[in-house]
């Protein structure tokens, strides 16, 4: 008797699964392109991480190549390069995040307080211009500004009686330059995101504070900034999920293969790309890639977990 009901329930579940699937067939059809895409371009490559433990042979393919255990990782960790690259990638990203948040929140607050609407709108359009161009064009602009013989900045410096700066001889300047151009290119985007968050603040808060005699700076500190914290945390978490992944386009176009500059501006992604392009060290490159992915994953899970404990509303998932 009991056996029969159990079998019946199993049978029932089975049918229900097909029935809900059939009932939702149109929704599932609409999902299909995205599902196929994600399987092919995200989940299948994930199986390719076995390459990190193999000696890749193009003819034998990903799964046919011979296993080599941890040899790729041993090479990777033994070369002193790895920590240098990880450190660079991390520090650059932290610099991008912190400079970004200061500029974006700052500009959002300023724009919000400025009265002149035409001015506001003009500024917003201008700020977005750099966001529209590729890093290739940014590299061309860098040359126009900083080229040793003809660059505009060097022209101004020498007109004022100073000595021209040869950027390609002074790698020490590049970290600043890279952070600057990155901020230049992305500040417009972030500013609008924060501006939207500011618009969502209840105006009564400001009015009440004003009646109580709070100054502008006090209102910004006590009302606007605290109201922006959730947005900041979400953007921070999103950035943190990629914190060991460098902005390849930026570094490839601005720094590229220039050996002198790589001293100061080499990142994991450039290293992996170089290994891939020379096809000499596929195993080590995929080991580095796996290492990078795992670092990112651990970071985001840990930080999100901590935030979930402290402030469940602010966590990403």
């Amino acid at each position, binding site marked *: 008797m009991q056996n029969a009901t159990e079998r019946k329930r199993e049978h029932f579940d089975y049918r229900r699964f097909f029935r809900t699937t059939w009932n939702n067939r149109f929704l599932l059809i*609409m999902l299909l392109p995205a599902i196929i895409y994600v399987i092919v371009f995200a989940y299948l490559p994930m*199986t390719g991480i076995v390459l990190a433990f193999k000696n890749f042979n193009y003819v034998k393919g990903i799964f046919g190549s011979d296993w080599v255990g941890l040899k790729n990782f041993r090479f990777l960790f033994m070369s002193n390069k790895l920590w240098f690259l990880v450190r660079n990638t991390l520090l650059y990203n932290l610099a991008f995040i912190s400079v970004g948040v200061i500029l974006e929140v700052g500009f959002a607050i300023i724009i919000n307080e400025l009265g002149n609407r035409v001015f506001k709108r003009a500024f917003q359009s201008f700020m977005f*211009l750099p966001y529209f161009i590729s890093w290739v064009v940014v*590299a061309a602009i860098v040359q126009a500004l900083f080229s040793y013989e003809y660059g505009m900045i060097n022209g101004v410096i020498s007109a004022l009686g100073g000595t021209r700066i040869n950027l390609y001889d002074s790698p020490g300047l590049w970290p600043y330059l890279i952070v600057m151009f990155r901020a230049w290119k992305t500040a417009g985007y972030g500013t609008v995101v924060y501006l939207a968050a500011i618009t969502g603040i209840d105006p009564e808060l400001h009015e009440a504070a004003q009646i109580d*005699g709070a100054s502008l700076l006090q209102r910004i500190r006590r009302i606007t900034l605290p109201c922006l914290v959730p947005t900041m945390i979400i953007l921070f978490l999103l950035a943190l999920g990629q914190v060991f992944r460098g902005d390849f386009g930026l570094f490839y176009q601005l720094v590229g293969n220039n050996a002198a500059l790589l001293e100061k501006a080499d990142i994991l992604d450039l290293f992996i790309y170089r290994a891939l392009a020379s096809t000499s060290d*596929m195993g080590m490159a995929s080991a580095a890639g796996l290492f990078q992915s795992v670092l990112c994953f651990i970071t*985001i899970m840990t930080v999100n977990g901590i935030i979930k404990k402290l402030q469940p509303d602010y966590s990403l*998932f």
Partner: protein
Amino acid sequence: MTPRKIIQKDKMIFNAFGYLLVTLFGLACVLPFLLVLVTSFTSEASLMRNGYTFFIKEFSTQAYSLAFGNPQRIFWSYRNTIAVTVIGTACAVLIATMTGYVLQRRDFPQRNGFSLFFFFTTLFNGGLVPTYILCVRYLGFKNNYAALLLPLMFSVWNMIIAKSFITSVPYEITESAKVDGANDILIFFRLILPLCKPLVATLGLFSALAYWNDWYSTLLYITKEEKMSLQYFLQEMINSIQALKNLVSLGGSASTIRISLPTETLKMAMTVITTGPIILLYPFVQRYFVKGLTIGAVKG
């Protein structure tokens, strides 16, 4: 001094600094473009004398006539980039909005499972090497137009933006249409999508920008000149001009050759040629762009 006055003084100082900072940054965003544009219309000889400046001292279209002197490659890369941008953007917008719609449907039982299935790919991925090998060895991406089209066709972020926008469309629309017996695909295309114009404009803009500015796919997968994208062509051009210049300056008495070959102005002219359409489009789409970002920001 009364408190009222303190407040006003406060505001005045803030405004002064505010306008100053904002003006400076605004100029920093615009002037480089002006520099490139002005230089592209300057004669090379004048550039050699004065360097890059904001003023045209000797007007010349020499750089442009040189760039268009051999238009074959410009034509190829323009054709590729326009085709890929149009087709890719249409597909990308369709997939993102469709997926977003399904994932926000309350009556779709597996929506959380599928959301996780998509979201997980933003937390962890296989990395460049496995992706590259998969695409080249198993999907035949080498010198295939699919390599320019597919890598940018779906992004989880666009899907999340779509999902959070469509959530604001009343569920009753879907519900009543279902009661009337319409199927989900019909509901989406006939009822929901027409209500999502700002969303479509935004996602379209994001995707079009990504396709237009793409050089990475070409770098990885394309070696044939007639299949390269516009931005990659620009990059190659700039690099080869630079290489040529280095070669010439190694050769010693270079100044005569250098003037006969307008390298610097040619670089700037090429930059204008490849970036022009996007910048010209900018004033028209800018409005949607700001709006769309705001859509994305609602949820974060």
